[in-house]
Structure formats: C-alpha cells, structure tokens
C-alpha cells in the first residue's frame, strides 16, 4: 500500500508508544476495504495459514478442501504417504474439483467437462481428447497447480499460496511449544473427531482473533454460562470429568497471558479442579513421559493459543481447533473441530464432547454470547469519531521475556503478564500485522 489510506498514514493505525503508556489501534482497521484487500494479499495469501490436521487426511486418497485467503485449495494424501496441496480449480475452465469438503478419491474428475487428475495433480484424462488439440500436444501442461508451500508440524498442516515464506518452524516460533502441549497429550496421536460446525460472525476477523485470547471478557460475557452450568451440575449431580470447571470464570485461580512474538499469543488459567479435565485419566502416563513443568501446561492449565493470524487452538473445557476465515471486511466464517487423544476412554470422550457442545458450538451457551459481543463491537467501531481501540491494560506488570511458569514449560515468550485480563499480548500481533500491511 502507498502508506496513506483514506487520508490516514498507515503507521498511524497502530499507536505504539508503551513508553508513554499508550498502545491503541485505529478502529478503521476493522472497517476499511483497502486494508482488507492488503490483508488478503499479504497475511492470508502471502503467508502460512492453517489448512487441516493430518488425521483429517489419514489414508491415501483422502482430500480436504479449504481456502487460503480467498483462493480455494485442497490437500490430497499421496500413495507414498506424502501430502500435496493444489489450487482447487480445473486447468480447463476453473471448476473446483472436490465434490465434497472432504472425501477419498484416487483421482478427481471435474464435474463440468470430465477432465481427470491423479492424486499427484497429473492431468491423466481429457474427455474426447483425440484430434482436438494441435500436434505435439502435451497433456502435462494441464497438470494442476500446486500451492506455494505446504508443511506440517506435529500433525498440524499449514500451507501458503506464496512460495516466498520462511520455513514453517521459523514461522511458528514459540507457538510450537503450545502445539506440543496439545500433540504430546497422546502417545497414539491426536484425532479430529467427526463433524464440524461453521458459522458466520458479522464482524471483522481481527476481533475474533483478539477475542480468542481475551481473558478479560470471560467474567462478563460468559457469566451466564458459568451460572447456568453451576446450577445444572448441582441439580443433576454431575461428577468428575462431566463437570465443567468454572472456577476461573470467577477469577479465583492463577492465570496469565503471553506475547509469544511474531503475532502468536496465549492466555492461560489453572484448572480448578484438574479432575474435571478429560485428560486427567492420563496423568500417570504424562508424568512418566514428560517433565513435570510441561505436564503442568498440558494437563493443569487451560490454554488458548492464537497462531498468527487466525488459527485458534483451545484447550479449556474441551479441545478445539477454531479457524477464522475472513470473507469480507465485516464478515468472518468460523469453523470448529473437536480434537482429542485417540486413545482416551469412552467416558473421557463423552465428557469432552458434551463440554465441546456446551461451550464452543454456535448452538452452545458461550460461543453464541461471543458472537453477540463481536458483532456489537464491529457495529460500535463504525462510530469513527471515537477513534481508538485500547490495549493498555497491564502495561505496568508486563515482564519482558519469560515468567517462572514459562521457564518451567521451556518456552520463551516475548513478554509475559500476570493476568489474562491484560492486553500486552496483542503488541506483537499488531506490530506483525502492520509490518505485513506496509509490505502490500
């Protein structure tokens, strides 16, 4: 972008002056169409994006279709066990090649003119090919176009339209530790459980990203959830894993937040009590296989992770992958999956699913409240005269580098803070965001 947007300097969109106790962002970043275009180009089509979990494309021929930014793509499991990612468009006239969002097919045949492609992307059949193309015609010019980059970290598959990206592990940085805390929960491997849910938030995607690691709203927006669950559990006599630990909603436990650098962020809170977690049945195994500083993070602390810019891995009441996909400046498509250790007991799985439904599903009791809050925020941002969104809570208590529990967990955040109410975790998110936008 040219440095000016709507008469506004781009570098003025993020008022980044911690020394003056100021960190705020211009609410125009949630509203401006040109900024949205730049985000699509740089953040979403020019950088790593989460695609799916390996368990969703386990067997040769399994495919999974999604978008990188606005571009339809799919990943396809190869006969040799490798994974490839393609632009989801027939080389002939662009029709998408996957009849379903996920499925299994050794070859994909376009439903428009029957051109057929192998798993490998090779064009192997053109309907009525004979005599219709010039002499010396080489079908391989119609092989599918692969996406620029594809990589996997501990089962989490990422891709990029652009090939000009840093190595995946460098991109993930300190977020790797938090993916490890999830991946290490299972010796047999994690699985994405069948079924998913998709809903639209009538608001900018960055608000959804912010909300995913905003502990501060919890005691307001989810107060009714906490009260309802508490009453239900008392009335119905729920025990053990079936209980939802709601202590943290009432702010009675230790919690905190991390700016992991490169735009990755985390909030966390102690579980109260740990026995409510479906993972608690694996405590002995975890203690045996991992250092206790890590087991604390895996088992004894609920965590929300944002992998920049819009993947949320959530391990609180249940374990979830949540993907925010921008549709337009004021519409965000959200897809959620429940993630679980494949070897967990029937009882643990049952409890995990019920709590997933309670909190995370759009038909549950918490996400619906979040959606209302996010749409109200988007609407309020249109009040342009009230220009700034504020992110200065906790500036005084911010620790540069790791705190005690980060050191014990073996990761090094850029900054740590003593409460998940605090807003210092957003700094590298908006700094990274600005760097990308200025590149456009």
């Amino acid at each position, binding site marked *: 972008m040219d440095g000016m947007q709507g008469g506004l300097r781009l570098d003025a969109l993020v008022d980044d002056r911690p020394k003056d106790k100021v960190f705020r962002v211009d609410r125009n970043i949630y509203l401006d169409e040109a900024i949205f275009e730049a985000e699509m180009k740089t953040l979403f089509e020019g950088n790593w994006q989460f695609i799916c979990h390996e368990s969703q494309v386990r067997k040769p021929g399994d495919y999974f279709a999604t978008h990188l930014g606005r571009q*339809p793509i799919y990943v396809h499991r190869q006969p040799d066990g490798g994974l490839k990612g393609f632009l989801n*468009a027939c080389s002939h006239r*662009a029709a998408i090649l996957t009849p379903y969002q996920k499925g299994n097919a050794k070859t994909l045949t376009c439903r428009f003119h029957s051109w057929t492609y192998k798993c490998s992307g090779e064009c192997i059949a053109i309907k009525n090919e004979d005599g*219709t193309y010039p002499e010396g015609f080489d079908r391989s010019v119609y092989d599918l176009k692969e996406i620029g980059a594809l990589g996997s970290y501990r089962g989490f598959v990422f891709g990029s339209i652009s090939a000009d990206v840093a190595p995946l592990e460098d991109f993930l940085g300190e977020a790797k530790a938090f993916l490890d805390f999830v991946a290490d929960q299972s010796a047999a491997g994690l699985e994405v459980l069948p079924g998913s849910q998709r809903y639209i938030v009538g608001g900018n995607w960055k608000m959804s990203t912010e909300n995913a690691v905003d502990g501060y709203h919890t005691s307001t927006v989810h107060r009714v959830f906490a009260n309802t669950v508490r009453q239900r559990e008392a009335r119905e006599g729920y025990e053990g894993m079936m209980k939802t630990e709601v202590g943290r909603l009432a702010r009675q436990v230790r919690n905190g937040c991390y700016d992991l650098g490169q735009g990755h962020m985390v909030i966390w809170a102690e579980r109260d009590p740990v026995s409510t977690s479906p993972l608690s049945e694996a405590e002995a195994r975890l203690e045996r296989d991992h250092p206790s500083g890590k087991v604390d993070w895996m088992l004894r602390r609920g965590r929300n992770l944002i992998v920049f810019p819009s993947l949320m891995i959530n391990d609180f009441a249940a374990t979830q992958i949540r993907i925010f996909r921008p549709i337009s400046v004021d519409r965000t498509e959200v897809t959620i999956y429940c993630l679980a250790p494949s070897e967990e007991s029937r009882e643990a799985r049952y409890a995990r699913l019920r709590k997933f439904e309670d909190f995370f599903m759009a038909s549950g009791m918490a996400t619906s409240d979040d959606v209302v809050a996010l749409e109200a925020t988007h609407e309020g941002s249109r009040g342009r005269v009230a220009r700034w969104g504020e992110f200065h809570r906790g500036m005084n208590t911010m620790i540069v580098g790791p705190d005690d529990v980060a050191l014990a967990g073996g990761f090094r955040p850029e900054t740590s803070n003593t409460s998940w109410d605090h807003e210092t975790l957003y700094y590298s998110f908006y700094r990274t965001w600005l760097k990308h936008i200025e590149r456009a």
Partner: protein
Amino acid sequence: MDGGIVKNGLDALVDDRVDEGMFRVDRSVYTDEEIFELEMRNIFEKTWVFLCHEAQVAKHGDYFWTEIGRQPVYVHRQEDGSLRCFINACSHRAAILTPFRQGNAKTLTCRFHGWTYKCSGACVGIKNEEEGTDRSHYDLREIARLESYKGFVFGCLNPDVMPLEDWLGATKAWIDLMVVQSPDGLEVVPGNSTYRIDGNWKLQAENGVDGYHVSTVHRVFAHTIQSRESKGEYTGIKKTEAGRIAGGVPTGSYDLGNGHMAIWAQHTTPEVRPIWEAKDRLEKELTPAQVEWILRRGRNLYIFPNLLLMDNPSTQIRLMKPVSANRVDVTVYCIAPRGESKAARAGRLRKFEDFYLTAGMATSDDIAALEDTHEGSLAREAKWSEFTRGIDTYTKGPDEDAKALGFEPAASSANWDHEVLFHGFYRNWLKLMKGETA
C-alpha cells in the same frame, strides 16, 4: 495493492495466439469487480441488448420492464402500433413506473407522488401542480435506439450504435430458423422462471453454447429420461431424444461474428420433436437446408451479450441480467410456433420443464457447474481458462452447412466440443471493453 487490472492493460486478459495453438482467458475476467463495472459501461450500455419479444407487448398499452445493463427500462406499445422504450424512472424522484414486470396501461402513474405519464412518455399529470409549470420538461427519457428483427426487440443506450441488422449479421439466418416454423409467427408461452446464479454472466453465456459439457453435466438427465421413457408411458413427441447427449451424432459450432456464437447437434429421433407435425408444410415452403436445420438439428444460439435462443428438446428464450461480477440473474421463457397442435404444445412444455426450468433436471446441474467454476476462478494463482480445443481443425469462414443455409460465420468447427467459437466472443468482448466500436 495492484490498483487495477483495467488500468494495467485489458489486452493481457485475453491470450490470443491462435497461430501458436493458444487461446486462453485470465480468470479474473469472471471475478474482478472493476472489470464488471467496465463491462456495464462499455458493453451493456454501448451496444444492442435484447429486451423482449414483440408477442410480449402485442396490444396497445402493453408494457415490459427489463434492464439494459443495470439500468431499468420498459418497452411500451403505442396507440399507432409502434414500440417505444423509456428509462424506467419517474422524472420527479426516480421511482420505477411499472407496477409489474409485464402489464397493460395506457398511462403509468408513479406510485410515489402520483405523477402520470402517457404511453408516449409525455408527462400528463403532476399532483397539486403549481401554475405555469411546463410539464413537457418532465417527459420521460427515451432510450437512444430501439429496433426489432422479426419479432425480437433490441434496445441500445448509445445513439451511434450500428443498425441492428448489421449487428445481428450471421445470427439472422438462425433467428429465421425459429421464426419460419409457423406462418403465424412465434408466441411466448405465458409464465417464466427467474433464477440466480452465484457466478459471472460470461460463464452462463459460454455454457449456453458449450457442447463439451453436455455428456458430463447432463449424463444423469439423459439416463433418467431414458429409464423413464423405457417404462413405455412416453411415446411420440412426449419423448426426449437423448441420443445426442451420449455423443456419436454429427455436431458443430460457429463463431458468428460480433461475439455471437452457435452450436448444433443432429437429432437421432427427429420425429419426437414437436415441430415434426409441420414437416410437410415446411418442406413445401422452405429450402431443403432450412428444413434440415429446423427438423433434424438441435440448435443453441447466443446473441451477444445477453440472449440465448435454444431449440433443442424444447424452445426457449434465456435472458441474462448481470448483477455483479459474481452474480447473474437468468429468466427463461418458452417460445412456440403459433397454431401448433395441443399435443405438440404439451410435448414442448413438458420438455421445457424437464430441461430448462430450474425445477427441472438439467439447468440445476448447469447452475452447480457454473457456481463451481466461479468458485474455482477465485484460485487466482491458477490463472488461465482454456479455449484451445479444435484450434487447428476449424474452417475460416463458412463450412458447407453454413453455405447451404446461407450465413457467413467467422469460423466453423465440425464438432460442438470445440472451443474456437469462444475466440470471437472474447475478441469482441475485448474490443468493446477497450472502448472501440464493434
């Protein structure tokens, strides 16, 4: 931000290198809003656009409301039998003046403030008019050009556009094939269906003359019809000839010039066609070539930019209204020779419903294919859509069939699978987009 495909050069959108065996189109022509805006200005508001059939405005006072590009207009039959066409907006505050898509009214009164206009567009009533008002100042704005070819009415907002018949060129012989089917002319059968495709209008334009998709997209249609008909309840003109869908019959395609296009396929069982009952009369009145084309060849004709005329299992007008880069609204009308028998009309209507209505079994599959194509076009890195099939086997100018019927295509292909006809479409598109005249 790249600040615009249009500014960076329209020529790069159409990779037209036929000599090197290459013709392809940048898929952003389907998805880019800036290109769409330019299409509205330089194509839909500059050249002839189909409005309606005269049979839809037969009597004095009959009006028909449609759009030229995005501008609402209506055609109104005058007292002297002529047609006029006005911008459909009250001179006062722009409210549209026609309460219905089609109707009859000697005067139109605006439903907002009660201003009234005659058939002629003259402003004849201003509610609570102030003394000394010159009402003629508020006469309706007439469109620049309105002409009709054998019942098909076209309008244009550009006064300098070439005469309609020059514009239609080689398509006239194809329109004639519809018109001469009855000595009393065509009628538009009452009723219509309007549906929305979440895809670019050019995808529908292409699809209307794309023979190549038929054996893929309409395979299920063909099988369903075949299995239904094998149960024996369907005989004679109730049958749909599904042979051409399975392939193996002579077919062909034409670039008719000015962006117009056509495809055809031989009927395997012409006796199931509703027009078969008129065989003797047609053979007496028409040339053998005309009879062959009418009775034994299914035909899809595309008239640039917004009209498809089809005579395959049934006969139809398909009208395209672009709404945005990613949406086109389509309206279908069944047309029929006046005076055909009740049995022929029933056969025609049932087959119209089967194939052409959105509630039918073929159009619904087309819509799915077109929406898939629009979605896939958003995969910008896979940049090109291909139009190379048959690129080194076509005939420049007319083939023998065209000569026999007497029309001059720019290119003829001996197969409806071929894509050479689209070259003319995109060349004309590009020419108009660049602001040159057709």
